[in-house]
């Protein structure tokens, strides 16, 4: 009895994966746990291991093709074993045109490579056909030419029936990410999907973090525990403030996808990390249950693993709110794009030194942190979103609350 190799589901939002490469070919012996193929999805590649000892008897999904999650992509069995029921490739097979090419068509295709025509570089049309097409208001580029050299003739224009167009032409989703590969393609598709399915609005406000920075220095000195570098980083403190604000604002810790709105009990924070290949968002799961130092450790750990490419597959998806930081680049405010299906994303800018009047009218130096909150206006309105940003700022300006 043959055993299926299945397309793994590596995250909540993963629906299908692409087989990048088969490490084994049909007929090769495999050992349980040995890598049989590499798949890619969303933002990562993943090695699929053999579920048992045996022989790779059938590859269902060849390299380069997609398969839905949990669908079989191959079989392992005894040498010579046949797959019972011969399951079909989950992808629909292309319909092969059985039309015989006449000598004339062959001659035509010799005159001009058909790809040249379909690529739209140059359309050949007779003067008469061009005139008739113009009179009829037909875009002749859509007409198939049957004349010499593939040119469009009068008869082609007269025989042309325009394809019925839907009243509201849907976005050509296939075209998004076209010409891009791997992670870039995924990012393109996800960013466009986010912009197309949400009503995004970004609000900006600065937090006074003078007290926070003082508090951070005191903590470092007084904790008595040797802190690994970054455990009490500004990033960690901001994340903690966000977590506390999210606890009080359930509508911001939610998913809205395909017509389903769901508030999530746990808080899973996505942290945008820039890699050379593109942006990835590793997740700190159950972030609300972590102490400040645990949170710092987790942050350091996922960012490190992400950069090394060793992050576990399940830590790439499932975040409920995302934080992205352009502070290191000197950016103050920006308009982050929501990491769908989340409701909000916080953009952290660069820390600024400013002059201000103290209560006793002295001019003092303070430190400010520009924050940009993008939210989905479908789910939350401007005032509650501003209140949510206000809560984050309140926690940052009252740092002792971060450790309670």
């Amino acid at each position, binding site marked *: 009895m043959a055993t299926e190799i299945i397309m793994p589901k590596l995250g909540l939002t993963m629906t299908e994966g692409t087989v990048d490469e088969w490490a084994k070919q049909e007929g090769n012996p495999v050992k349980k746990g040995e890598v049989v193929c590499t798949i890619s999805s969303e933002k990562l590649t993943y090695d699929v291991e053999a579920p048992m000892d045996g022989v790779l008897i059938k590859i269902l999904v060849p390299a380069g093709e997609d398969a839905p999650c949990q669908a079989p992509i191959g079989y392992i069995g005894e040498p010579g074993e046949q797959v019972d029921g011969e399951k079909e490739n989950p992808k629909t097979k292309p319909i092969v045109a059985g039309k015989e090419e006449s000598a*004339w068509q062959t*001659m035509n295709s010799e005159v001009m490579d058909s790809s040249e025509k379909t690529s739209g570089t140059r359309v050949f049309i*007779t*003067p*008469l*056909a061009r*005139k008739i097409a113009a009179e009829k208001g037909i875009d002749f580029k859509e007409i198939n030419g*049957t*004349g*010499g*050299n593939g*040119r469009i*003739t*009068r*008869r082609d224009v007269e025989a042309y029936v325009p394809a019925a167009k839907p009243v509201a032409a849907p976005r050509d989703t296939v075209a998004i990410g076209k010409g891009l590969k791997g992670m870039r393609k995924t990012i393109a598709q996800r960013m466009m999907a986010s912009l197309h399915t949400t009503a995004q609005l970004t609000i900006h406000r600065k937090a006074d973090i003078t007290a926070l920075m003082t508090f951070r220095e005191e903590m470092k000195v007084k904790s008595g525990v040797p802190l690994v570098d970054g455990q009490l980083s500004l990033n960690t403190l901001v994340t903690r403030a966000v977590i506390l604000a999210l606890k009080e604002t359930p509508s911001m810790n939610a998913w809205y996808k395909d017509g389903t709105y769901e508030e999530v009990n746990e808080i899973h924070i996505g942290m945008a990390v820039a890699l050379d290949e593109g942006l990835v968002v590793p997740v700190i799961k159950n972030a609300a249950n972590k102490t400040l130092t645990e949170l710092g450790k987790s942050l350091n750990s996922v960012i490190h693993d992400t950069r090394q490419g060793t992050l576990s597959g399940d830590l790439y998806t499932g975040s409920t709110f995302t934080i992205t930081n352009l502070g290191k680049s000197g950016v103050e405010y920006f308009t982050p794009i929501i990491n769908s299906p989340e409701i909000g994303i916080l953009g952290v800018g660069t820390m600024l030194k400013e002059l201000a009047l103290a209560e006793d009218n002295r001019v003092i130096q303070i430190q400010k942190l520009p924050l940009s909150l993008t939210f989905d206006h479908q789910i939350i309105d401007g005032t509650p979103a501003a209140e949510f940003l206000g809560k984050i700022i309140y926690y940052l300006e009252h740092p002792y609350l971060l450790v309670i």
Partner: protein
Amino acid sequence: MMSRRLTFMKAINEGLEQAMEKDDRVILLGEDIAGGADVKHLEEKNEDAWGGVFGVTKGLMPKFGRERVIDTPISEMGYMGAAVGAAATGLRPVPELMFNDFIGFCFDTILAQGSKMRYMFGGKAKIPMTIRTCHGAGASAAAQHSGSYYGMLGAIPGVKVVVPSNPYDAKGLLLAAIEDDNIVVFSEDKTLYGMKDEVPEEYYTVEIGKAKIKREGTDLTIVAIGKMLYVALEVADRLAKDGVDVEVIDLVTVAPWDEQTVLHSVKKTGRLIVIDEANPHNNTATDIASVVSDKAFDYLDGPVKCVCAPNTPVPFATNLEQLYLPNADRVLKEAAEIIEDLKK
């Protein structure tokens, strides 16, 4: 009554006879067109005189005498010059250039003198002269007796050129040419001389400059010159089996050719093939293609195709000569790109 059938050659002969009967200013000049001059037993109205190298003028000398049917020395320049002079001074000469390949010998009399006199003398001199000559490959007559140079002559301002494709047109065009007050080259295809068809007994003319639609069609126009008409008709027959409706035009007059009829047809069908037995460059077919591309550009549904002889002299070997002549297979092949998509 049109039941009487004559050969192409006899139709020309009858035309000459009727022209000479009608108008005694009409004279014939040429090499051996009477035959037997200065040969004692052939002198005077000898019924057996040769009547030209093909016998086209046979019987005319006995009827009209050596004063009007003049055997000339073998000097094209001499008798063609004499004909131009005779035309300028009141006669209506019909000189015969035995083969159009010999045009070089007498070209000056036509090109530099005859064709320009009416223009240069402000219309005071007319040159009502009809040059009979013959063209065409297919008679195994070798390169110096087989060329088709009507297009070359048609390029000269002031010279009209007609190329009949059948006995009826041959007689009518010849009479129209003799009536015309300008130089008209009447170019006979030597391979059509034996062709028989109905020819009216009476005097009649066929209009110079008017093409004839030989077969009406809507899909494709073929314009043919002279015997190429029969190639065009064969193509039309063969394409009809594939559901292609071909219009065939006999150009009849090479200069000035009938733009109106050709353009009207092309505007109807959108496609044009011209079949011309001349060599492929600077000929009548290329001229038609040029004018049509200019004046009917917006009506063209494909490139204009010219099917002509190759760019060589006419071969002597009969097998090569057959390859030289445009035929239906060649037309279907060379113009395939504007034919194939019409087939149903």
